[in-house]
């Protein structure tokens, strides 16, 4: 029984088949990367895993149980994700964004909170401590009380990552973590992904275009084209695979 598996997953939007019979499984503790040209269906797969829309075929299994319901159920199971185009809470501070990430760990109910009983205060301090660990890891101290709306792109990407980490997930889905980042920031991102995997023991499922980053951090790679799987294996194997080279990496003429 694998840690996380996708079985024969497929979805169509109107006449367009975005994902066609995709199956793969991810082992606990590895970094599994999905690569492929734009429009291959990578983000669509993430959206399907996150139950943002339902698949037309196939199923998703996590820790032996099928993943179904609504997106908040996915989060409750311990699966977190980041978004390609950054979906942060713009009118809140970085700290508040991270604290919202702790939502699934709340232990107080509405009545407790209206009265702000001592246990609410204790819970708040505990959440704050948990969030501060993430802030320390990602060096976000400087931006704690800044409104997200005014922050530069690179910082927002990091906050997006931080918010996903704050949920204390078992599996984290990173959608193009290095897109829009300069080489130095990409380097930082690589270190963080390694920290997440080895230091925090979180399994990483990632979509990426930057092949250097892919080679550096991935345990295994899946190549997708036009909604179908075309190759799977170690980074070196997949990058050398002729179908992948033709579809995506650009073969020499």
């Amino acid at each position: 029984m694998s840690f996380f598996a996708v079985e024969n997953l497929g979805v169509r939007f109107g006449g367009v088949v975005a994902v066609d019979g995709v199956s793969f499984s991810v082992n606990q503790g590895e970094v599994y990367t999905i690569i492929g040209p734009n429009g291959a269906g990578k983000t669509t797969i993430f959206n399907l895993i996150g139950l943002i829309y339902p698949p037309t075929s196939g199923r998703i299994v996590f820790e032996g149980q099928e993943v179904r319901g609504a997106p908040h159920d996915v989060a409750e199971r311990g699966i977190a994700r980041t978004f390609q185009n950054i979906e942060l809470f713009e009118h809140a501070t970085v700290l508040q964004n991270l604290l919202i990430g702790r939502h699934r760990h709340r232990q107080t109910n509405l009545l407790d909170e209206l009265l702000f009983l001592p246990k609410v205060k204790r819970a708040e301090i505990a959440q704050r401590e948990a969030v501060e660990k993430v802030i320390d890891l990602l060096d976000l101290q400087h931006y704690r009380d800044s409104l997200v709306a005014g922050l530069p792109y690179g910082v927002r990407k990091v906050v997006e990552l931080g918010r996903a980490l704050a949920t204390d997930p078992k599996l984290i889905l990173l959608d193009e973590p290095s897109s829009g980042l300069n080489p130095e920031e990409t380097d930082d991102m690589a270190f963080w992904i390694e920290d997440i995997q080895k230091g925090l023991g979180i399994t990483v499922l990632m979509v990426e275009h930057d092949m250097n980053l892919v080679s550096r951090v991935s345990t295994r790679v899946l190549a997708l084209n036009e909604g179908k799987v075309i190759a799977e294996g170690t980074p070196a194997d997949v990058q050398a695979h002729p179908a992948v080279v033709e579809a995506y990496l650009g073969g020499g003429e």
Partner: protein
Amino acid sequence: MFSQLLQLFLAGVAQGCVYALVALGFVLIYKATETVNFAQGDVMMLGAFFGLTASTILGWPYWATILFAVIVMAAVGMLIERIVIRPVLGYPTFTVVMITIGVGYILRGVVTMVPAWGTETHTLRTPFGDSVLRVGGAVISADQVATIVLTAALCLVLYLFFRYARLGVAMQATSQNQLAAYYMGIPVQRVNMLIWGLAAAVAAFGGILLAPSAFVHSNMGFIGLKAFPAAVVGGFGSVPGAVVGGLIIGLVEAFAGFYLPEGFKDIAPYVVVLVVLLFMPSGIFGETIRKKV
């Protein structure tokens, strides 16, 4: 029995045409700027007043009054866009809705303050007078016939306009991605202004058609509230939808007024809109709203 049904049907269609015209104005503005103009009913009311002025005070013939009201209101519509709407494009939906509600209040207030208009109810004379037609046992007034015919004519004109004029395409672009439209060289602000002018002109047209049955007074615009259910039923963002929706609401009202107990007639359109929103929110011809992530 049949003549009874036909009577109700025709009355419903005639009233529905007025709702359709106001709803058309909504939809035009919504398609262009994703703004909903809650003042559309009051714009209609102002148009009716201008028509009244031309007809009663200046003594012009019917056709001239229509033209006068339409042209003046087109200018007013463009003015509203320029002064009030342009600064707030891009603000959240809710905020823009509230600003149009504010415009409605201003229009209503100003109308009551004009000496010749004031708070009384006025009648607008039409060349059809009180003549009626008899169709298959049903009685329909010439005013109602004129409403239906003129509305149909206007729809045809608009259809041709959007089919064969560049404004239609430009309008769609500005509503979907304003920044990109700017980059493509579309004069976004001018397009928006023209759309508001057009929507106001259509509303003025509707106001004059409505005047014989509803009389001209400063609270006439509240009838425009029923155009919201019309636009929703037809599908917000669809021009044919606005017309179809308007007709449906008109018919629902006519039949509810006859077959259902007292009071249901007034809330029938709102019950319909709630039902539609629950089960078919995009209406008959409408769009889906979903953020792509």
